[in-house]
């Protein structure tokens, strides 16, 4: 294809996106679009899968049967999200095995928030309320993103995430209205998860390298800083409602901006965790790689069995 032809295709492609048309797997797309989508979508899928670990950590110790069932269902939903996101990413010409390989070798990233430990039951509340809350703010705009399979997957994911977020808040509310010990547990969880949740919305706009192109492709509709402000403005009144204190002495309502001013985020901590040196990075990867390697004989057996079955069927047919 001549350069001229490519430019013309690119022009048509940009126009389609501007008209809010969806791009489908078989449509022509610029290589950069494909790569960027593989990167973002697989990162999203990996986050769902790694995200199962911190919550899975409390399944065996959930305090009541009702909570245990809800937590199991939630972690299972995350596995389901991982499954459709991997499938949606596969439509761009990469296999699930390749994506796993990228995760296991550290080439692909996942959301850094999952590198923090869940050390009390209240963390199940905080993760649902804050982490899923921040995730929804990131994800709702993606329901209208330009790549069809991703947009459709996100519609389903967002519905379930908002259920999880309410469930998390309900856990916190119950604790905050419970015994002094329960209330302390809830406050402690908020103290530990607040700042990492703010970091979850990404580096400040000045340091975010992908934003401009992503805006054009509708992979992003608001900047990281705008999303962060939206998250804070939405979450502070919820904390007040249940009598918990946001661990930020600089947090103050700004009448002029009609938004909260907030304190300095510790970006050194953010980059430390992103670069693989958070409290749980090594453990999380060890758990994922371990499950994959220990499961190899099971997957091989399933494959061998399917082949044998196929052979027998063919022999019978002859």
């Amino acid at each position: 294809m001549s350069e001229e032809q490519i430019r013309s295709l690119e022009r048509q492609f940009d126009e389609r996106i501007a008209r809010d048309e969806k791009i489908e797997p078989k449509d022509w797309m610029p290589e950069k679009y494909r790569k960027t989508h593989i990167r973002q979508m697989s990162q999203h899928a990996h986050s769902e899968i790694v995200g199962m670990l911190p919550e899975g950590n409390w399944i065996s110790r959930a305090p009541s049967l009702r909570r245990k069932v809800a937590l199991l269902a939630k972690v299972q939903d995350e596995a389901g999200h991982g499954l459709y996101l991997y499938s949606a990413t596969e439509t761009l010409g990469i296999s699930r095995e390749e994506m796993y390989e990228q995760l296991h070798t550290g080439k692909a990233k996942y959301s850094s928030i999952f590198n923090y430990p869940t050390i009390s039951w209240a963390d199940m509340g905080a993760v649902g309320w804050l982490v899923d809350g921040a995730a929804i703010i990131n994800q709702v705009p993606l329901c209208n993103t330009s790549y069809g399979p991703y947009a459709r997957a996100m519609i389903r994911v967002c519905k379930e995430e908002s259920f999880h977020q309410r469930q998390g808040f309900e856990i916190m509310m119950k604790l905050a209205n419970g015994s002094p010990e329960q209330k302390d547990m809830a406050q402690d969880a908020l103290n530990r998860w607040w700042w990492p949740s703010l970091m979850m919305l990404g580096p400040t706009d000045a340091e975010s390298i992908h934003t401009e192109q992503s805006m054009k492709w509708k992979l992003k509709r608001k900047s990281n800083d705008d999303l962060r402000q939206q998250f804070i403005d939405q979450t502070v009144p919820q904390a007040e409602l249940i009598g918990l204190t946001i661990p930020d002495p600089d947090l103050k309502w700004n009448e002029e901006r009609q938004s909260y001013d907030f304190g300095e985020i510790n970006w050194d901590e953010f980059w430390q965790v992103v670069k693989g040196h958070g409290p749980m990075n090594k453990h999380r990867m060890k758990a994922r790689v371990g499950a994959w390697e220990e499961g190899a004989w099971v997957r091989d057996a399933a494959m061998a069995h399917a082949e044998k079955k196929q052979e027998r069927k063919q022999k019978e047919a002859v």
Partner: protein
Amino acid sequence: MKNQNLYNYILGIADNSLILGQRMGELCGHGPSLETDIACTNISLDLFGQVRSYFQYAAKIAGDGRTEDDIAMLRKERDYKNVLLVEQPNTNFAYTLGRQFLFDVYHLAFLKELQKSTDLTLSAIANKCVKEVSYHERFSSDWIKRLGDGTAESKAKMQDAINDLWTYTDELFHQTEADKAMVEEGFGVDVTRLKEAYYTEINQVLEEATLTIPESKYFQKGGKEGIHTEHLGYLLAELQYMQRAYPNMEW
């Protein structure tokens, strides 16, 4: 308690689902593939759903203010009445699926009989559970065939698991005093009558899986009387942790 036998009988049924559900839940996030992970979590979810129905009923019969969670999480180890089979650990995926399969075949046959119980609540719970457990049984027996008739490695692992777990199968058909009393009253299932069909079905699947049917005639029992293997204490330590550490609170 007026209905001590019925209460004990329900606990005997429900504890199997409770302990097996707890074991399956341990795997969540650590399965050999995303699909099996989801399926195992699903089985765990079904079992805990069943547990809630049984314990809510048991709490009503006890009528002394105890809740489903008190019954599930605040008994002493000796008061759990599950069979030894379901408390065996997730040594590897062959043990997990072997345990599931050896229990599912029994569980399904048991529930089909429990559907006929003259106790309407038990029969209604059994009606709901039968659908779920039919799926569990299909899932686990398919996997026994896959792993048995897969690779040499998977066959060896599956055979080891079946050999080791076999010793816990006979207990499924052992009757306690509560069982006998409930059979007499028409509420309960006579498990001794399920034994022959159980081994016939198990053997068929093992044969199809090209596995050897264990010949051992030495069996372990005791779970139904609360005498467990060493594994149960650790499982309960996790299951009960929150209720023990923070007593009398709502969650």
